[in-house]
């Protein structure tokens, strides 16, 4: 008897639930992210928030916003001014300057493969969760674009194109910071770099030189480079663990890095491992751009390590300054690292 009552209730629920079917909800055109084969085969799926699905219109809008100086306080600076596509969306300068000529204190990070940052901690010190929130920061930073989101929203709202573009992307002409950053994040997720010489080698499409191959072996050798513990391997095409380490740059810290975010002294001097993709285009290196060349970087790990209380135990032979690579090893390691550069990506 009770089952009959349940059936009746379910039938009634089904009837009522159909009442609102005729309400139209705008749906933009779904964007199919092209996942490279090496990513598809080897690592987890990209992070795409359920409240910001990628759409063709959203990506297009995000791209337009990324390159538009309208986001800055005086309409002179766009995201792309510091994240230049020809430099894998990084800046060739040690520090970037904002609209008032003031410089920051961190090197501009390149932008690619961001959807595979599984912990979604962004910036050198991981201070911001999610790509959407990351995009909020530079607009309002006084030493970057030095604007306010109220002002940006007003300018976009009064623009002759943007309201209709937002309507296409999100089904509303009312523009706010939430939708602006959603669109930019959608565009940033399309910045995928996966076509370096080494990728082609892994796919069986080309051969490496003996120097590049030996460099890869040094990279993977715990007794020599031991780069793989933090920077991935042939099985992790991101070439970063997206985690935070003190890689022995300083004995004392002027920039606490992750420690300033967590408040934990054990995190002082820790910064995110950057991807080793596209190093040919992303000099200078390290969070403060202290190394002008890749040779400087390799020399640092070979004989330039500085001990400190938070240096990562993965750093080898710290009391000798590092792993003491030979000149030949250094040259081969550099050759391998450069084989991770993706000229197609910077040419797009």
């Amino acid at each position: 008897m009770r089952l009959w009552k349940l059936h009746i209730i379910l039938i009634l629920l089904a009837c009522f639930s159909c009442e609102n079917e005729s309400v139209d909800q705008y749906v933009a055109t779904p964007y199919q992210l092209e996942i490279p084969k090496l990513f598809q085969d080897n690592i987890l799926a990209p992070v795409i928030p359920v409240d910001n699905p990628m759409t063709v219109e959203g990506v297009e809008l995000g791209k337009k916003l990324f390159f538009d100086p309208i986001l800055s306080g005086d309409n002179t600076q766009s995201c792309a001014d510091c994240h230049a596509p020809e430099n894998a969306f990084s800046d060739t300068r040690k520090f970037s300057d904002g609209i008032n000529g003031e410089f920051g204190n961190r090197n501009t990070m390149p932008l690619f493969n961001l959807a595979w940052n599984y912990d979604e901690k962004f910036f050198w010190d991981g201070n911001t969760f999610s790509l959407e929130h990351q995009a909020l920061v530079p607009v309002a930073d006084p030493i970057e674009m030095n604007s306010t989101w109220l002002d940006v929203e007003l300018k976009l709202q009064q623009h002759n194109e943007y309201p209709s573009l937002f309507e296409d992307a999100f089904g509303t002409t009312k523009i706010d910071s939430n939708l602006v950053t959603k669109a930019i994040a959608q565009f940033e997720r399309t910045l995928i770099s996966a076509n370096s010489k080494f990728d082609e080698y892994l796919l069986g499409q080309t051969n490496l030189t003996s120097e590049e191959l030996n460099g890869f072996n040094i990279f993977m050798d715990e007794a020599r480079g031991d780069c793989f513990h933090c920077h991935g391997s042939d099985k992790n095409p991101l070439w970063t663990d997206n985690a935070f380490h003190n890689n022995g740059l300083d004995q004392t810290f002027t920039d606490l890095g992750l420690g300033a975010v967590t408040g934990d002294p054990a995190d002082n001097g820790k910064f995110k491992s950057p991807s080793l993709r596209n190093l040919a285009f992303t000099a200078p290196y390290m969070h403060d751009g202290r190394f002008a060349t890749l040779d400087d970087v390799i020399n640092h790990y070979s004989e330039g390590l500085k001990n400190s209380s938070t240096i990562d135990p993965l750093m080898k032979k710290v009391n000798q300054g590092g792993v003491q690579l030979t000149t030949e090893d250094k040259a081969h390691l550099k050759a391998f690292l450069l084989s991770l550069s993706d000229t197609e990506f910077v040419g797009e």
Partner: protein
Amino acid sequence: MKKLVFVFLISCLTFLSCSEDQDDKISQATITLSFSHHWDGNLVSNADFNTIKFTNAFGTQLSIERLRYLISKVTFYKTDGSKTELQGYNLVDVTNNQNLTFTSPTPIETGTYTNVSFTFGFNNEDNAGNYQDLNSASWNVPAALGGGYHYMQFDGKFINTSNQEQGFNYHAIRAAENPGDNPTFPQDTFFAVDLGAVTITNNTTFNIEMNIAEWFKNPNTWNLNELNQMLMPNADAQILMYENGLSVFSLKSIN
């Protein structure tokens, strides 16, 4: 018309779905493994990391900065010799306080089992697989050492004979010799941890302890001044780790 079809389908589904409800005779239980960690009886969590506060059997003071390890092949054995392997594996990440419990996606039949075990690391067959989550966690072992995956990454610092802090990387992998295109493997270094007999009547949690101090103690008293880094290509060190690992885990309780 569409509404009517929809309502009819819903009705059919509800009628049919109820017809089998009373027929579930075989009882099944969900199995969970919960991992805790201690140093000779003193509970250890990531809050204890990054401080020189432990002393190993050799008398060396040390800190823990990173500890994560892989367990796999949770297996239940019956008296008739049959066994049931639970699906999945688990990367216990003490550093980030993640995956300290592992619940198998597949339930197990209730009943009496003569033994329950899990594997520390991967056996050689599983180690040859390709796992997206483990690759994403940068858990791989270089191909020159046979490839596959780490069993454990245990990093920290110790006070060396010069009274200075020095890093150590106690990384357990499949022992390999002759690194290169054709490495050789002197012996297996994964191992099974037996939890003993159990009768499963309901959803069950096995509370498993790792005594971290045992990695340095039994049967090999570990001298970090001699064996501290670059241990992955050191097959002899891997075998010592294996031998010490056999007494690291114990079953604390079942509930």
